[in-house]
């Protein structure tokens, strides 16, 4: 029988389909961003008005700029290597979207010129860097065991929880004013218990951060109002944001940190906020909120405790840490370092930062993200370039973006296990 070479054509579908199967299930996917070209798996750098691309590079004129990757499968880790030059800004960061709405990002710094120009003592351990004005600590572990005061320390993409034994004193804290949508509480307790009186649906996430340090998130929807929250600990702090409901009487809350931001979305919430320092000489300031949706920001010269008086509610306030009273203060974390932070009273900065490699004024740095638990709507993973406090103009020229996605190895056994567990949980 004579073999017909024409039948070799029928290997085309087998080869193409096999190659696509391999690409889709392979545990490692390597991608390279091609400038000025449409790639099906990688989106362009957008918004296009903020980027000018030629065939070799892209220049960012205004921040933020982002791009998406269409994920063929689930991956655990993303390594993004950026090669760039002519950075006109102090800070250059890349972030990966952390939630379905893609409003929250986990950032890794590619370059921080402020840190690079420091003449402070520097200790580097496992990607963490401790900058100290005076040489007090010999290691980062020593710093974590015996942490300095909140006022003189900043953190930058690094978590550190200063903890002291007296925080375990028995008692309870009550939040008896209405809070809308969600609240992030941090408490120091050996067994935290929470009693919630709320209108609408919500869920409770309790996360152990450190020994006896718990983060409790009450996550509701747009209509949820938490009227009363009781926690079995004296040491309770509210993190990041409080979205007040309508108040019956003026509510005082205490802020630790140098930044305060407030915003009103309904006309009832237009009011005057009074901010009073607790240390002498007592300083008082007022924010008159008379415009809707307008963010009002106040930056303070120090990080001392301040009393914030909210008279009517229906207002959103943002800051590093809020306390219910000024008696039981504890600092579950340090304030975040910003590019424009006043460092005159700061003696320590704990940062997660690796200096970029430099060759002939071209710099390269790699950001490694854990993407295992990140939700990816429409199977898209979003990365964002951030250049905080930059002015418009050519801010940075990106010469290459190489992405390496790493996931679990494909195994038929795991697929069967998945099917088996899906069937069991469905029945």
């Amino acid at each position, binding site marked *: 029988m004579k073999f017909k070479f*024409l039948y070799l*054509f*029928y290997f085309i*579908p087998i080869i193409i*389909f096999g190659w*696509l199967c391999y*690409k*889709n299930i392979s545990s490692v996917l390597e991608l390279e961003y091609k400038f000025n070209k449409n790639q*099906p798996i990688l989106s362009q750098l957008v918004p296009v008005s903020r980027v000018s691309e030629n065939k070799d590079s892209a220049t960012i004129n205004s921040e933020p700029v982002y791009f998406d990757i269409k994920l063929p499968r689930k991956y655990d880790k993303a390594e993004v290597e950026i090669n760039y030059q002519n950075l006109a800004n102090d800070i250059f960061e890349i972030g990966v979207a952390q939630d379905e709405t893609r409003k929250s990002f986990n950032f890794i710094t590619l370059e921080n010129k402020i840190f690079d120009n420091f003449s402070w003592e520097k200790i580097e351990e496992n990607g963490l860097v401790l900058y100290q004005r005076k040489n007090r600590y010999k290691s980062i572990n020593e710093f974590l065991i015996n942490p300095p005061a909140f006022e003189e320390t900043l953190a930058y993409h690094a978590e550190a929880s200063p903890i002291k034994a007296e925080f375990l004193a028995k008692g309870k804290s009550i939040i008896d004013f209405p809070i809308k949508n969600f609240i992030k509480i941090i408490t120091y307790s050996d067994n935290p218990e929470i009693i919630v009186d709320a209108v609408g649906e919500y869920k409770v996430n309790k996360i152990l951060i450190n020994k006896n340090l718990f983060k409790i998130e009450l996550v509701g929807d747009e209509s949820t109002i938490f009227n009363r929250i009781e926690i079995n600990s004296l040491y309770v702090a509210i993190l990041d944001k409080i979205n007040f409901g309508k108040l019956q009487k003026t509510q005082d809350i205490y802020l630790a940190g140098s930044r305060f931001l407030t915003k009103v979305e309904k006309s009832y919430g237009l009011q005057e906020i009074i901010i009073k320092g607790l240390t002498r000489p007592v300083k008082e300031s007022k924010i008159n909120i008379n415009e809707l949706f307008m963010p009002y920001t106040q930056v303070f010269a120090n990080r001392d405790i301040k009393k914030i008086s909210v008279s009517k509610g229906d207002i959103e306030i943002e800051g590093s840490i809020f306390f219910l009273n000024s008696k039981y203060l504890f600092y579950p974390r340090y304030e975040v370092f910003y590019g424009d932070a006043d460092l005159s009273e700061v003696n320590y900065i704990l940062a997660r930062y690796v200096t970029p490699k430099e060759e002939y004024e071209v710099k390269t740095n790699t950001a490694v993200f854990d993407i295992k638990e990140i939700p990816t709507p429409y199977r898209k993973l979003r990365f964002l370039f951030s250049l905080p406090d930059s002015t418009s103009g050519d801010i940075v020229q990106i010469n290459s973006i190489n992405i390496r996605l790493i996931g679990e190895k494909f195994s038929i056994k795991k697929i069967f296990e998945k099917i088996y567990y899906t069937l069991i949980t469905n029945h």
Partner: protein
Amino acid sequence: MLKHLFYSLLITFLLLAIAEFIRPGFATNFLNINWLFLALIVSGILALTKSKKNNKLKV
């Protein structure tokens, strides 16, 4: 020969279309289907014209 090429490309196209329908992005993430479709059309037209020519010669 063109006929076999056309058939093989048609099978590839249908296979990828089904895979793409079941799992969006399966093929389009890595391959520009438009080029495959163009090759399919060109090979189809060429196969058709050649077979017409052959039929005329036979008559």
